[in-house]
Structure formats: structure tokens, C-alpha cells
């Protein structure tokens, strides 16, 4: 078994969380000295696999065996895997902004004698490591003063210090501009030539095609195939086919769209990142919604879908730069959430526990919380009778499973929590309801019911926008689908012409083209 060409072999790895199988019998083999890419849709299990490898999920919490350099490994934490020379660099960089480059590089691994840090040695060593990654910065510069691209290089330099043999990069270029991305890819090539093996998780297929020697595709927690890029014949189309090869298995309730007039339109919508003014999260976006229409928005993580929707919803994200909005034929300027709600726009947030719910509230108080004035007197006294009636009404309509409307929302299951959030927005009687990942983390049965609620809303003549990472869901639900990549709308497909391949192509295209 000790094939000297193989640095890592993960055999038959399975990992489940209560209620969901994240990985099922995954096999993954990495050859020594190659760049190996892992591709898959959001939620396919890529990161979970890497967490199993690096000891975030320790030995014993998964099934299967990991062989590293021919030896069976039983990492009990990240330190153990790092000790063996496996270093993972997460998408969210683990750097402390106020500390210097050198301090960050040696954190937890300080160059110290009896607890006293030798700063001269530390900074010298840091300078040497920085030179190896081609970063010319003073090691004493605070980390917050250098850009994200350079921070990524610091992370790699930090890994080099740990005598890394197997470097895992999770979406390393997601937050980088093109120049920084190119530089990073060059660096990875350089590491390869020095014998360091890299595993790279990325959504950017053109980069993967350019750099990887092999590609393993994961779908729904299972390995689909491993492609040998060096042998030729692998291109983006081939990768996409592997990633989405799933059939439309989710079922959808019957629904006949009754599409009316265009009533909502934005054009030239441009928004800056709230902290980084020179980064645009929405670039000159334009789209429209018709009455009774369900419009889907497809895009990979970080493409700017949520940012666009929140910006439309009362400028609740980023710094608005330019753009116009027309609602019912009249130009409107909705620069606060309350104005947006008043104008008839609702927004079901993507992370219901962080952004959507006050977990201290009951079903009843949550249902009415987005439009309290509707059940309050002019002096602002809440009519508890009306509140109860409204909450009961929506509980019955949406078939929310709760012992009573007085019950705390924190104790409901995910699907029922989502129904309560939906009730909260249906209560505001929106003309346009935006749903961001409406079925994330809920089971199939509840999904089916939520699809039904969305369709009924559209049948009553309202406009619905659905943002989702699950392409089958968008294809089954939407009448029309826009694609977003890196903050720009890259295409718009009608239900008839859309399929997973055509969407995935537009979702990974950086330049806009009409389909």
C-alpha cells in the first residue's frame, strides 16, 4: 500500500450530522507534488472533507481511514495534523487585525525562551518566510494595513514555517481581485515545483483548469469522479457536467404561472462594500419582476446575491452609489427598511437564526413584528386580540407545527421556524417578496410546503424573488432565472432554456453575455 507517489489517501470516509449525511463513502487520493482541486456545488461536502482531514472533526467522529505518507492517521485536533505537515488555510482568514505580520505568523508558535519572545529572531525569520512567498512587507506592519491578497500570502508563509507538506486552500481567491489571484496561483505553482502538495477548493473553474493536475468532483457528499487534467480532455464544460449531474429529484407542487405586467424594475444598481469603498459588491445591475412571476437568482457563494437583495431592501447593506428603482410605474427611493416595507417589499433573510428571528420571541410576537402598526392603535398600543387572531390565522394557513402561538420560536424545528419567518413577511402583505435561501437547512417535507407557499403567493399576483444555491430548486420553482457572478448580473434565462449546465456556465463567467 505504501505507494511512494501517493501522499494522501482518504478511504471510504463517511461523516454524518444528526439528520444529514454530509459525506458518504468518499474516496480521495492525492499524488505527491501535485495540485489537486476539489469541485462541487455549495453544500456538496468539500469543506467537511477537508475538516475531517485536518482534524477539525477528530478521529472517531467519522468513519473510514486516512493514510498519510503511507501511515494510518488518527488526528485528534488541528495541532496533530499540523504537526504531521498538513496545513489548512480557511476562506475566512484566521488573522488578528491589530497584530503585526510577524506576530500573526508566529502566534501559538512563538519564538520564545522561558516565555520571553525574541523579537529579533522572530522578525528575521518572518522576513525570510515572506521572501519565500514573494511578499515585500516589513514584518512589523500591522496585518490590517495590508490587503486581503497579501494577507493570504502571510497565511501561506505561516504554513511554510510549519514545514508544510500538504497545503489545503479553501477558496483562496474568492476575495481577491484578478491580479492578486494571478499572483497567488503563480505562488502555488512555485510551491509545487518545490515539492509541496496542494489541495485547492475553488468555485472558479477557469483557475482550476489553469492550475490543477487532478480534479476530484464531489456531489451530495459522494465522490463522483477524479479527472486527470494532465492527461488532457478536461475543460470547464466537463467539470460542470460532473458537478451538476444530478436529476431534478426534488418534487414541486403543481403550479400554473399567471404572469402579468412588469411592476418592479431596477437599473444601473451599484453598491460599495460597507468597509472597503473601492470594492463594488453590486456592479451596474439591472433586472425586473412581473406580477405573478417567480424570479430566481443563481450565483455561487460570495457572488453578491444577498448583497444585491439587501441593498434593494431599503439600502440595508453597503453604501449605495447609484441606480434607480421603479415600482408600479413610479420611480421610488427606498433608503430605509421601514420605507421598503411600507412600499410593499419584504425580505426573508438567508440566515434565519442570525438575521431573521429574535429567538427570545414567541410565534405570535414574531408573526406581527415586521408591521406592528397594522395591529396597533394610532397611539401605538398593540391590540393583543388582533395579534392573536393574525398569528393563529397564519399558523393555520402555513400549517406551522407549534403547540400554540404563545410558544417560543427557539424551540421549533428549522422548517417551522422558517414558516414563522414567512408568516412575518406575509403579514406585511408585500407586493414583492424576496426570499434568500428559503429552504436552507430544512427537510424535504417542509421544503415542499414552502414551495407551495411561494407558488400560492405568486398565484395571487405578487412578485417573488428566490435566491438559492440549489440549482434544482431554482429550476423547479422559477419562471425566469438571473445569474450573478462577482457582483454583476451575467445573464437571464427563461424557464424553458435554463438547465443546470447553462446556469453554471453563466454563474462562473466573469464577463456578462446574453444567453
Amino acid at each position, binding site marked *: 500500500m505504501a505507494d511512494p507517489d501517493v501522499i494522501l489517501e482518504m478511504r471510504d470516509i463517511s461523516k454524518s*450530522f*444528526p*439528520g*444529514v449525511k*454530509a459525506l458518504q463513502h468518499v474516496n480521495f487520493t492525492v499524488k505527491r507534488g501535485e495540485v489537486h482541486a476539489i469541485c462541487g456545488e*455549495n*453544500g456538496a*461536502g*468539500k*469543506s*467537511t472533507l477537508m475538516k475531517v482531514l485536518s482534524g477539525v472533526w477528530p478521529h472517531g467522529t467519522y468513519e473510514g481511514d486516512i493514510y498519510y505518507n503511507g501511515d494510518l492517521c488518527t488526528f485528534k485536533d488541528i495541532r496533530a495534523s499540523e504537526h504531521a505537515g498538513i496545513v489548512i488555510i480557511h*476562506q475566512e482568514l484566521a488573522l488578528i487585525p491589530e497584530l503585526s505580520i510577524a506576530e500573526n505568523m508566529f502566534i501559538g508558535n512563538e519564538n520564545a525562551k522561558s516565555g520571553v519572545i525574541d523579537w529579533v529572531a522572530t522578525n528575521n525569520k518572518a522576513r525570510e518566510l515572506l521572501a519565500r512567498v514573494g511578499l515585500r512587507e516589513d514584518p512589523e506592519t500591522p496585518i490590517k494595513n495590508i490587503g486581503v491578497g497579501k494577507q493570504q500570502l502571510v497565511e501561506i508563509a505561516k504554513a511554510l514555517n510549519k514545514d508544510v507538506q500538504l497545503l489545503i486552500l479553501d477558496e483562496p481567491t474568492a476575495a481577491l481581485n484578478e491580479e492578486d489571484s494571478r499572483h497567488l496561483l503563480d505562488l502555488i505553482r512555485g510551491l509545487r515545483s518545490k515539492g509541496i502538495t496542494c489541495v485547492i477548493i475553488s468555485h472558479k473553474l477557469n483557475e482550476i483548469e489553469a492550475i490543477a493536475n487532478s480534479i476530484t468532483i464531489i456531489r451530495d457528499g459522494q465522490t463522483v469522479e477524479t479527472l486527470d487534467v494532465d492527461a488532457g480532455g478536461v475543460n470547464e464544460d466537463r467539470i460542470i457536467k460532473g458537478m451538476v449531474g444530478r436529476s431534478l429529484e426534488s418534487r414541486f407542487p403543481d403550479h400554473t404561472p399567471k404572469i402579468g405586467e412588469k411592476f418592479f424594475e431596477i437599473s444601473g444598481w451599484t453598491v460599495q462594500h460597507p468597509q472597503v469603498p473601492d470594492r463594488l459588491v453590486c456592479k451596474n445591475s439591472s433586472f425586473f419582476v412581473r406580477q405573478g412571476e417567480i424570479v430566481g437568482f443563481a450565483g455561487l*457563494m*460570495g457572488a453578491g446575491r444577498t448583497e444585491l437583495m*439587501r441593498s434593494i*431592501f431599503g439600502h*440595508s447593506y453597503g453604501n449605495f452609489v447609484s441606480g434607480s428603482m421603479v415600482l408600479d410605474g413610479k420611480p421610488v427611493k427606498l433608503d*430605509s*427598511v*421601514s420605507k*421598503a*416595507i411600507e412600499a410593499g417589499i419584504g425580505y426573508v*433573510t438567508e440566515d434565519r*437564526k*442570525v*438575521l*431573521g*428571528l*429574535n*429567538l*427570545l*420571541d*414567541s410565534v405570535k*410576537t414574531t408573526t406581527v*413584528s*415586521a408591521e*406592528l402598526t397594522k395591529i*396597533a392603535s394610532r*397611539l*401605538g*398600543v*398593540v391590540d*393583543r*386580540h388582533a395579534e*392573536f387572531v393574525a398569528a*393563529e390565522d397564519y399558523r393555520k394557513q402555513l400549517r406551522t407545527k*407549534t*403547540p400554540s402561538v*404563545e*410558544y*417560543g420560536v427557539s*424551540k*421549533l*424545528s*428549522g422548517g*417551522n421556524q422558517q414558516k414563522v419567518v414567512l408568516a*412575518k413577511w406575509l403579514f406585511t402583505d408585500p407586493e414583492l417578496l424576496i426570499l434568500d435561501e428559503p429552504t*436552507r*437547512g*430544512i427537510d424535504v417535507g417542509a421544503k415542499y410546503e414552502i414551495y407551495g407557499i411561494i407558488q400560492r403567493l405568486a398565484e395571487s399576483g405578487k412578485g417573488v424573488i428566490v435566491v438559492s444555491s440549489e440549482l434544482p430548486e431554482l429550476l423547479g420553482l422559477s419562471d425566469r432565472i438571473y445569474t450573478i457572478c462577482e457582483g454583476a448580473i451575467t445573464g437571464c434565462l427563461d424557464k424553458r432554456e435554463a438547465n443546470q449546465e447553462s446556469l453554471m456556465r453563466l454563474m462562473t463567467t466573469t464577463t456578462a453575455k446574453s444567453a
Partner: protein
Amino acid sequence: MDKLKQVFGGDTRQFGMIFALVALILFFQWWTGGLTLKADNVINIFQGNAYILVLAIGMVLVIIAGHIDLSVGSVAAAVGISVAMAIRDWSLPWPVAILFGLGVGALIGAWQGFWVAYVGIPAFIVTLAGMLIFRGLNQYIGKSNTVPVPEGFQKIGAGYLPEVGPNTDYNNLTLLLGFAIVAAIIFGTFRTRRNQAKIGATVEPMLVTLLRLGLISAAILAAMALMASGRPGTSMPLSGIILAVLVIIYGFISTRTVVGRHIYAVGGNRHAAELSGVKTKKIDFLVMMNMSMLAALAGMMFVARSTSSGPFDGVGWELDAIAAVFIGGAAVSGGVGTVVGSMIGGLVMAVLNNGLQLKGIGADMTQIIKGLVLLTAVAFDVFQKSQGRPSLIGRLMRNKPQDVAAPAQTDLGREAPVDQVVRTES
């Protein structure tokens, strides 16, 4: 047995905390040989703590919204001296002076609210600064002197309900007030029952309602009769009446109005509140401003009681008020707490203070005991939460009735890891 539980727990969980207060009172009654429940002592407890309880009303709203206010003692002192000087030097009639004092409080509150809400400085820092600024202002305005206030003004801190009507050995107005309160509570309870029945909500058994009403009525009437039986001229203190009115108003605002709901929403989940159209900055501003206005009122009540305003009025009040709020079941992280709970928390501290004083226990031991009580009350709360059980005090104090009997019915643990899995992919 279940019914009995409902009387004390059931829907209105304030009863559990009241139970602790009653136990404390009975203990001191026994330990002090009956001194605690003497009319004069009860009147004294109310009069001597009314201003702290007024502060606690404002403080609980601040804490529910997720902030804190350390400046209340200094604000009270600054307003106290301003009012005393205004009466003395500008010959302001005392009723006008009260309005003037509230105005100064509002101005100070607007100042602090501005920094917290619109500049985004944590309230801890803003009010720490305020604590220094307004203490200094008090000493600067009054040149560190003590300034007396006229007799009319003293009424709001040291006055009582007057003696009217036939001689009954009791203060008639106090008795009447007691009857009126009991009547209002009974009327309100039955109206709620009727409404609940009309809309098909669950109505508690009649027996439970009657038992609970009986207990409340008996307690209120006993307390009023006790105070009415004091020495002629002393009875229900006016400061107690001011407090009661404020409790009713703020209790109503916090539970029944849009603004109240928004305060809980901001403290419970600021992001969710913002994305539900709540103007979170306005709420922050309002709670901070309201706190300073109530601090102004508390300051004036104290000055009235002690007949003059001095440079060391209000020192340490913020801590008493904050302690009352947390003993009363509020959460440090915000979103949880009730006005009535804070009143009970404040009374626990007051009775403790008073009982130890009656026993002649020194200020040193009193402080140690009060500190330990605060720590124990909150530690118990935290312990309950970490055990996965609903927080006892929080549960007792939640105004919203919640079904705590069947938490296992829906699968709570099942969904969370799924979310986690999805998130790992981002």
C-alpha cells in the same frame, strides 16, 4: 396540585419572584421580632427606596435594549442642584421647578442618547463619561454647597396622602386607594378572560384565577391597611404613589405598545430588528433619553426627601438600580427583563438593607451580603441556563406566557447541525 402550581407559576410567573420576596420579608419579620412589618417601617422602606425603584424602571428598559447607564446617580445630582438653585435664585415656583428639572434631564438624556445611538459609542463609555461630567457639573453649579428646597417641593419625596373624612383610626385615602387598585385588578383580569374566550385562546381555569386574585387582593389590602394605620399624618407616601403610577405607565409601554415591542426586539436581535423595519437608532436614543429623565425625577424626589441638594447626592445609585434589574431577571445580553420584575428585585434589595439595618448590622456586612445576593441570584440563573433548563428567574419574570412544560416536543437539536454543515461550505 396542578392548579396550585398554576396559581404560583402557570401564566403569571411574577409569582415565583414575589414568593422569594415574601419569604425574605417573613424571615426578617421573625428575626427582627416583628419590627419589619411595623407601619412606620413599611412606610420608611417605600419612601427610602422609591427613587432607586424609579431608576430601575428606566434601567430595565436600557438593559433590555442591550445597553447600560452608569451616569444615573450623577445625572440625578446635577438635576437636583439645578432645581434647588433655580428655586432659590430665580424664585421659580416649585411645580414649575419640577418641569424645569425634567427638562434638564431630557437635555442630558438627549446628549447621551446622541453619542450612543447616532455616533455609536458604547453606552458603557458614554455614561462613564457622563458619570464624571454630571458629578462635576453638580459641584460646579452648587460650588459644592448644600442648597435647601422649600416645603412644597419636599412633598414629592417626603409627603403623604392627607387625612380626610371621618376618623376611622386609619388613613381613609390610603384605604380607598387600596380598594380602588383591587377593583381595577379584578376588573382587568375578568376582561382579559372574556377576550381570551372570545378569540379562542386558552383560558386558565376559573379556580386558578380566583385563587390568584384572592392572594393579590389580600396582599394589597394588607399592605395598604398597614400603611394607613401609621401615626396620624403619615400614611401612603406620595413618592410611593409616583412610583406606582410610573410602574403602571412603563409596564404598559413595555408590554403593550409598538415602542415597547421594538425595545425588546432591538435587545433580542438587533440585526433581525433592523431588517424588520425597526428604527434601532431611534430606540437607542429614546431609552437613553428616557433613563436620564427618570434619573432627573429620582434626583428631585431624593432632594425633596432630604430637604436639600448636596454635592454627594446619588453616589452609587447606578449600582443599586442595575442590581435591582438583574436580580429581577434581566439578561446582560439584552432582550429579557420586565418592569415589574425589576421592582421586585429592587424591593428584595430594599428589604435586605432595611432588615440588616434594623438588626444593627454594619454597612460593611450589609454590602457583603447584598453583593452575595446579587451574585447568587444571577449565578443561579446562569446555572439553570447552562443545564439546558429554562432560566428560572428569566422564566419567572417573562411577562409572555410560554409553554415550558413541553420543550421536548419539537426536535430542537436536530436542525442546528444541518445549518452548521451548510455553513461550512461557505
